[in-house]
Every structure is written in structure tokens, then in C-alpha cells.
């Protein structure tokens, strides 16, 4: 769920399009238990990073829940306001409990995971290059 939650919406849609997975527009594949709805989750921090919690500000989230014709239930809570992203995430969650699990894994989750990893790696590599190395200067001392 976390991979889907933070995936870029357009990327998830493109991967789904290119996969052998059923399109969410195909009729009869699933029914909504809770239609995708955008809202907010309040983010909490801690005073001094370790103390009592406080409310920092909100983040947009879209959630939804559906049931496949075969009975499996899929839930989605994804970052942002994209309802199609929530639909695909819920569908993926449900399909992971079916014979299509392998296709979801190879066509959707594993590329998303790799791309997220690559983005994090690129940031970390740039950060590492800005790490300061200190040199002790030679001091002029008396012989």
C-alpha cells in the first residue's frame, strides 16, 4: 500500500495502461464499497522531535474501497487528490489477493518501487556530495 500511496499518479496510470490488468473502466469487474473521496489527514509532529505531539498541518489524501466480482476487497489511502490513482490503488490491493497478484507485482509495484528507490538514491547521492570534510590547518607553532 505504501508504494501505491506515494506513487506519482500519472506514472501509476501509465504502468496500468501498459499492463495486462483489467481496466477500471471495464464494466462488472468490481463494485464500490466507498467511492473515492478526497480529504485531509492532519500531520502530527512532536515538540522537540521527541516530546508531546502537536498538529503540524494537513496533507491531501484520497481514499476508496471496492470489492471485485470475485469477492476480494481492496482499500486505498493515497497521497494527493487524484481519484483515479485511488481507484487503481484499491484495485491493485484487491487483485493482490487473486491470481493476478504476480502481474500486479511485476507490472506495477516492482517498477514503482524501483523508481521511488532511484529518486531517493539520486537525492541521497547529491546530499552525500555536499557533505563537508574538515581539514585541520597547520598551525604556526614555536619550534
Amino acid at each position, binding site marked *: 500500500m505504501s508504494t501505491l500511496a506515494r506513487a506519482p499518479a500519472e506514472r501509476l496510470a501509465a504502468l496500468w495502461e501498459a499492463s495486462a490488468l483489467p481496466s477500471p473502466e471495464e464494466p462488472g469487474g468490481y463494485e464500490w*464499497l*466507498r*467511492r473515492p*473521496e478526497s480529504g485531509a489527514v492532519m500531520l502530527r509532529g512532536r515538540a522537540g522531535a521527541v516530546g508531546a505531539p502537536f498538529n503540524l498541518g494537513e496533507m491531501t489524501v484520497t481514499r476508496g*474501497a471496492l*470489492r471485485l466480482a470475485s469477492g476480494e*476487497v481492496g*482499500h486505498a489511502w493515497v497521497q494527493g487528490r487524484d481519484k483515479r490513482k485511488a481507484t487503481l490503488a484499491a484495485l491493485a*490491493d484487491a487483485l493482490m*489477493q487473486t491470481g493476478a497478484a504476480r502481474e500486479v507485482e511485476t507490472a506495477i509495484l516492482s517498477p514503482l518501487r524501483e523508481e521511488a528507490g532511484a529518486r531517493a538514491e539520486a537525492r541521497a547521492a547529491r546530499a552525500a556530495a555536499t557533505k563537508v570534510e574538515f581539514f585541520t590547518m597547520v598551525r604556526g607553532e614555536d619550534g
Partner: protein
Amino acid sequence: MTAFAAEALDGAFADAPAEASRAFRAALDAMSRPGTLQHAGGARPPAPLPPAAGALALTLVDAETPVWLAPELRAGPVEAWLRFHCNAPLNAAPEAAAFAFGSPASLLAELDRFAIGTPEYPDRSTTLVVLLDAFEGAEAELTGPGIRGTARLALGSSRAEILALAAPNRALFPQGRDLFLAAEGRLAALPRSTRLREV
């Protein structure tokens, strides 16, 4: 990947924006015209929650409204249904509850503990959602704001308990507790300003 039985997942509004608006209007009309019966449909909650109480919950209850459930509703399909569809904290202490759902007798047993609001914020009180079988039988006479002259509401065998639920309101005003009554697909309300007597 779910902790819920199927009956907990079904029964939400099919068209949430429209049906929630209609249910909200029903709740508003019920509160502003005490004693009138309003239709509140669209929800199919598990028994023993009446559909009107389900519609009210889907419309008014969310993650920020702590809910107290009467013992007869706990740990069963009703609790799971409310948790999934309303996302509400369901184990609130009576003092902290924004809404309390239960039979007249269960609510009466805890009545003194439900919040009555504060003098500065009388709205911070517990709204009681009283679950009934039907609006039939013995009647109560209602007077107060929103009622031209008097109104009558059939409460049947629960009449004495409902009168007892509303009784403290007169002395507490402007603090107090508002009541919704739900039976099947219909809703009535007894806001704290309404006075009741047996007829």
C-alpha cells in the same frame, strides 16, 4: 487484507453527496420542527441499527466525532459498519462522546454521564440517537420553539424512558442534550428546548 465481515462493508449511500444532503436536510427539519417525522433513507446498516439512524451516522459522524455505543451495539456488525463507513472513534467515554447510539433504556442508564456542554459552548454536548422499533402507541405532547401550539409524537412503550432522557434539559438550558429518535427509515428530534408531557 480486511478485518471486516461483508455486512460491515455494504450499505453505504450509493450517491453520497446527494443522499447525505437529503439526510442532513431531514435532520435539520426534524430538529427545527420537533415532533415531525422525517424520512431519512439511503443507508442499509446491519440490525439492530434502524436505517434512519444509519443515514444520520453517515451524514453527521466522522473521524472527529467520538461515538459512544450502547452495550447491545458493541463488538458486533453495527460497530464494524460504523467504523468502516464513518471512520469514527467508537469507544468514547460517555462524557467525551459527541454522539451516543442506543436503546432508550441503555441511554438512560448512562444519562448523567453524557456531556451537557459548557456555559461558553453549550453545543459541546452529547447528541443522543435513540433507537426505537416504531413511532406507534402511547403519545407525548410537545411544546416549545419550532412548534405551533402543541405537537404530538407516538413513542409507544418507550415513552417513559424518552421523557426521562429529555427531563433534565429544562433545568440545564442553555446546556443540555439534544435527542434524535430513529425507527426504520424515519427520524424525529427532541431538541433541548422542547418540553414533553404524557397525554
